[in-house]
């Protein structure tokens, strides 16, 4: 049976939904082992067992978070060797893709990013050129490294739980010698909203919000959604750059994307193209966004959004 290794960087107190998705895909490909970095608590080990993981690897070094990318890739290469995995799955974050990148060179393994589905033979499905094409790709090497986008599969529990063995992988001292060091860290204030790249629903505002994200944020909170923004809105300083969706920002593929005051120029469309359902609210009936919206409202977002928010609250009681 093929062996699959899933990398989970700092699992924390409980497994994130995106990690459960990776584990669900891993089980469909073969016997699953997990490599973690950072603290590993017993509940997480149990949860990994419930997900069918037969082995959990930890690094011998506790300070990998003090460095950028390189040492984590070196650790993971050791975990691949120890597990005998022929497929490695990582999350599709910037860090996940770069760890995959360096791991690929270390192992002589093909790397495929932005994966939304994996077949049993390792063929990966992805969409390219801002969602205008869907492709299948496959590594031609003995080991393949895949980074998988969130919301690609519905997480499911394993048919049978396992009691994973916890094993340590030696990280050579040379792994950190020449690496870039993180010398300062400032936490960003937590918004309490779901992470934009993982959210099931995104409410995004553009130029049309004219400096006031209030109605966008209130609708997002009523729906339990993340808040996104077009580049025009982040460049204007109305909302942090973190919220930027689209070609130079984050790619999202939620179930529902509500676009408010966004005209839908090509680069903005790129940010919403892969959403399952698109709703658009815009004053300008000629906006290109209406060409791709499943439900379009020609109207003032400052009227429509608050009314929708009230109605959702009423129905949710």
């Amino acid at each position: 049976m093929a062996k699959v290794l899933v990398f989970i960087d700092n699992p924390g107190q409980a497994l994130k939904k995106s990690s459960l998705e990776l584990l669900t895909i891993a089980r469909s490909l073969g016997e699953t082992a997990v490599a973690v970095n950072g603290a590993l608590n017993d509940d997480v080990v149990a949860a990994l067992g419930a997900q069918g993981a037969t082995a959990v690897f930890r690094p011998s070094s506790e300070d990998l978070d003090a460095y950028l990318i390189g040492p984590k890739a070196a650790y993971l290469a050791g975990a691949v060797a120890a597990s005998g995995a022929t497929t490695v799955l990582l999350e599709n974050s910037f860090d996940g893709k770069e760890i995959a990148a360096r791991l690929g060179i270390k192992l002589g393994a093909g790397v495929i990013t932005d994966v939304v589905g994996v077949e049993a033979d390792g063929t990966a499905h992805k969409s390219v050129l801002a969602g205008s094409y869907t492709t299948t790709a496959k590594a031609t090497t003995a080991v393949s490294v895949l980074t998988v986008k969130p919301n690609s599969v519905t997480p499911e529990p394993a048919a049978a739980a396992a009691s994973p063995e916890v094993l340590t992988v030696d990280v050579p001292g040379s792994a950190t010698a020449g690496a870039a060091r993180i010398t300062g860290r400032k936490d960003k204030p937590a918004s309490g909203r779901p992470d934009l790249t993982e959210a099931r629903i995104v409410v995004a505002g553009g130029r049309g919000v004219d400096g006031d994200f209030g109605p966008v944020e209130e609708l997002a909170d009523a729906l339990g959604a993340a808040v996104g923004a077009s580049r025009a809105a982040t460049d204007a300083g109305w909302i942090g750059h973190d919220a930027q969706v689209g070609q130079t920002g984050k790619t999202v593929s939620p179930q529902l994307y509500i676009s408010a005051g966004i005209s839908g120029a090509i680069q903005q469309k790129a940010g919403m193209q892969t959403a399952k359902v698109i709703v658009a609210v815009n004053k300008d009936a000629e906006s290109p966004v209406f060409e791709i919206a499943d439900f379009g409202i020609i109207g003032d977002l400052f009227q429509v959004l608050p009314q929708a928010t009230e109605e959702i609250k009423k129905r949710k009681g």
Partner: protein
Amino acid sequence: MKIIVLVKHVPDAQLDRHLSDEDNTTDRADSILSELDEYALEAALQLTEARGGAKAGNQVIALSMGPAGAVNAIKKSLQIGATEGVHLRDDALAGSDAAATSLALAAAVRHLGADSPVDLVLTGMASTDGETSLVPAQLAERLDLPQVTFASELEVDGGRVIARRDSDTHYDTVEATLPAVVSVTDQINEPRFPNFKGIIAAKRKTITTLTLAEIGVDPAQVGKAGSWTEVKTAAARPPRTAGTIITDEGDAGIKLVDFLAAQKLL
């Protein structure tokens, strides 16, 4: 200071983009200098100008790998202010994935550092065609250099590079010794436009063409033969069709919620 800036000739993202029918590679008609590479070029120019610019012997080398048309990305870089251009061009490179691309670029960087050492390799955060962000990290791995990626602020102090890097949950300060591979985001600066003087000056600047033989790369290591991934199928996504469009008559918010309820999205 000697800085190599990687510049890529990519299909204009403002237009519809296509994969070719025969081999699933990107159709490069209507290509331009990747917008995200302009930030890397600007960062290089600011670093070298702060040290006396070209007159003081600082070099900003725009390096592009690609077919004949890629020279346009180099020419634009020279107009903006790069001091020289290098075009890595060889038919065997066509169809290279990130691994093969990073192999060829690493060899080109070593070649360019043979006479005098390179301090920095600067890149954009991703290409706007492949969008994988793999190449900067793979280049760092192949050159055995520290990588400082997604920098939104950048300074060089003595033999160190110091950058700010934003992630979803925090801002990091990252430090590495030179030489290093650095990728920058679109938040780092406001790229300048070429002006008339720059356009005239660019005509006198040198563009060197390099082949694989000159940088010591076996053609079998690059292109489709040297790639570790293969695109098997590509299909244009069916265009999204417009759904229901309504004009607000005072109750559009409620109709919106009705729609969400019908789609089971509440």
